[in-house]
């Protein structure tokens, strides 16, 4: 069972946060609701996937931070989307490599003194 107290969880996670702690959790939340609005899946199906993922996570430990929670959310969404066969098995890892390369390129560009005129939106 849980060894940490609620107060520990509160102090770790920040009691007063009202929206998103990270830009990626905002995109993730938005993507999930938007995909459900487009009837790619129902929120009940997503809820079931999230419950399953959180259940697995809590077999080994606790979720005590916002980041830990949204990580479960991300994995649940990924699992659910993969059941829809929307892309090939290796496409996601290839796209991740492209995202990393783009971020790296931008970083190098900035280090070399170039100015990014329009910050790239997270799209």
């Amino acid at each position: 069972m849980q060894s940490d107290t609620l107060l520990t969880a509160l102090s770790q996670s920040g009691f007063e946060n009202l929206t998103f702690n990270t830009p990626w959790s905002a995109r993730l939340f938005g993507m999930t609701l938007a995909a459900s609005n487009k009837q790619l899946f129902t929120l009940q199906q997503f809820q079931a996937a999230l419950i399953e993922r959180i259940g697995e996570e809590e077999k080994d430990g606790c979720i005590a931070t916002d980041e830990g929670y949204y990580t479960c959310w991300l994995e649940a969404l990924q699992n659910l989307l993969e059941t829809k066969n929307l892309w090939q098995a290796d496409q996601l890892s290839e796209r991740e490599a492209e995202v990393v390369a783009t971020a790296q390129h931008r970083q190098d560009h900035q280090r070399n003194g170039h100015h990014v005129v329009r910050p790239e939106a997270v799209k």
Partner: protein
Amino acid sequence: MDHNHTHSEKDWQAIRTEAIESLLNEIDVLSSDDVDRVVKHYEENVGPKTGASVIARAWVDPEFKKRLLADGLEACNELGIGGPETELLHVVENTPTVHNVVVCTLCSCYPWPILGLPPAWYKSSAYRSRLVREPRKVLSELAVVLADEVEVRVWDSVSEIRYLVMPERPENTEHLSETELNALISRDHMIGVARDIELNG
């Protein structure tokens, strides 16, 4: 300054999220504008004050209160509040002898269109696992100390029903306007992890 050129500074979660969104864009399932609209709505339009406006209206309008207790979502719709994210809203009323508190033991279901996003602690294993087992103890840790004669009702949002606690209207507030009443009500009152409402001034 970080001179490591071989690693991205992005978290793996950020990378995967961006990659999934990019693929969904590419296959025309979802546009970034679709995602932007949801995020903007939750960052700018919806929050605990949305729920507070519902409670304040119920406090000043007994007929609205009856409708709210009978069908929460339908009554919220009268105020232009709602969304496809919530299908059923059950409003539970605190009384001198009943205290209501909301949890979601299996994940973190929450009335998003009414209260905005849940606080981080609502999603923590500690809150979710302990509130059902020892509600009085958890509430006392949160400074809600209840007399023995007050019954605690814990509402678990595991099905499609979402819950909203209606706190008791404080005494001596007859002179306050609906807007002033709204300002007294916090998110924690509507989750049930706060009970007493303090009058300002």
